[in-house]
């Protein structure tokens, strides 16, 4: 199958232009990260230097990976059902676009802002901690391997989250329920890193690599799977 880079780019560019001006999408992209940013900042300000000792033994920051695990699905949930409700899906499907191209363009358009938001929130958090937290806290929190994990896992988790969101979107009949289901369905993605953050499972390099491998595989299969689920006729007529 020869995919057309130009068609994928066409969808990608259109989606970004649309998202920029779509307030509900911006809100759904922003509000989870804000909760995840404010809550730990409040906590960090309450703790004093004596806590540093405890924190330094747990990869607490991995908990921030819940942002790329949960947020992108909220945007992706909009991808298919949003267009269907606006009545813009039919004209797109009359063009020679393949469903794989359409879905990849949409997934990439959800990925770019989600990853940007996740990195930004993380950077702001680290900065705030570095500048304002009590003595020793910053050094204990911010550890090299965790920064690397943040960098690598953010796009991998975001992509998985997006395929879940799009899969739900192709099957939904309205945007709100698609978003609600997507949030529920992506919670398992946030579990492994949260368990590591709270030392329920050890944060070893082997486990991290294994988790990364699983995510890479899931991201690839997600594209295939969602493409197979995408049924032009049902999306146009609402039957079957």
């Amino acid at each position, binding site marked *: 199958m*020869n*995919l*057309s*880079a*130009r*068609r*994928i*780019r*066409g*969808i990608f*560019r*259109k989606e970004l*232009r*649309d998202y920029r*001006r*779509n307030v509900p999408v911006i809100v759904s992209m922003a509000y989870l990260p804000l909760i995840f940013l404010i809550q730990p900042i409040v906590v960090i300000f309450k703790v004093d230097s004596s806590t540093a000792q405890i924190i330094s033994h747990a990869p607490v920051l991995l908990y921030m990976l819940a942002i790329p695990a949960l947020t992108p699905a909220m945007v992706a949930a909009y991808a298919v059902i949003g267009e269907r409700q*606006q*009545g*813009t*899906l*039919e*004209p*797109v*499907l*009359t*063009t*020679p*676009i*393949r469903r794989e191209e359409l879905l990849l363009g949409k997934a990439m358009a959800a990925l770019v802002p989600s990853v940007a938001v996740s990195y930004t929130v993380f950077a702001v958090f680290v900065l705030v901690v570095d500048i304002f937290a009590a003595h020793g806290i910053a050094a204990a929190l911010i550890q090299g391997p965790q920064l690397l994990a943040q960098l690598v896992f953010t796009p991998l988790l975001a992509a998985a989250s997006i395929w879940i969101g799009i899969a739900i979107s192709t099957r939904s009949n309205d945007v709100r329920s698609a978003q609600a289901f997507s949030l529920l369905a992506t919670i398992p993605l946030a579990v492994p890193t949260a368990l590591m953050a709270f030392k329920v499972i050890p944060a070893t390099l082997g486990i991290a690599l294994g988790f990364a491998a699983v995510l890479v595989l899931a991201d690839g299969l997600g594209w295939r799977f969602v493409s197979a689920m995408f049924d*032009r*006729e049902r999306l*146009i*007529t609402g*039957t079957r």
Partner: protein
Amino acid sequence: MQTQPQPVPPHNTTSPALSVERLSKRFGDRIAFDDVSFEVGPGEVFGFLGPNGAGKTTTVRTLGTLIAPTSGLATVAGIPLTPENGLEIRRRIAIMPESPGLYLRLSVKENLECFADLYETPKPNDRIRAALQAVNLVDRASDICGSLSKGLRQRVALARALLSDPEVLFLDEPTAGLDPAAAHEVHDLIDTLRRGGVTIFLTTHRLEEAERLCDRVAILNTTLRTIGPPKELRDRLFGKALVIRTVQPLTDPGDVLVGVPAVESWRQDEDGTYILVVSDVAAAAPAITRALVAAGADVLSISESRHSLEDVYLKLIDQDGETDPK
């Protein structure tokens, strides 16, 4: 991943642009259209008429590869309608759907840019400009679509359908909701496209539109009721007739009218006009005039009876009283 320009075989001007054979579509046990057969020649403007729920949109969607037929065969732009050929067919056609479906938060130009990419149009900026020129929208290119009136949105959708230079253009009620002047502009555009050799499949409720634009029309009401050039349909259904007005009623019309060449029968309407069913208008009219003058009648007018396509339509749709099959 790569962009691969597909070789397009030279356009065959003798084979039909659309050929449909016993095509049917059901949604569960509801029949959208049934046993429909017709052919549309290359460069023809073909009108598809029918009441609400007749199956026009479903036919367009089926031929446009958006939904699969339940049974029957079709070729679209020379390619057999099968699930595998969907992409190849969609490359050669364009559909303007019933509702424009524009991205309302994007500008006119941004909407067209997206579709130029989807069709992999070469020189997109030139084509977008040409399409906007064709629908007279160049100066609105940077307007956000959500701020446009219904008629302007319709025109953007039309420009979008022109981007890819399609062989077959499906227009699903392109003038629905347009004011007469705007509809007239669309008609002119269709005329221009016809001269450019584009095959046009036009669904409409507006009979005068079909009559003006279409080489042939089909009347659908779940099943195909009739098909042919508008004039031929009128003649076939109503026969040819002459309408005669005189200043004073004829004293003995039977005496004057019977036996005139090419006149088959006559009757008198309530308003005093005489209606003559004739086999040949050109032969009957002069003969009648001479007969009337010879009988000393003062003739006010002799004209050919003009049954409109609307008369044909209403008569056919009314047949077997089945306007809604559900």
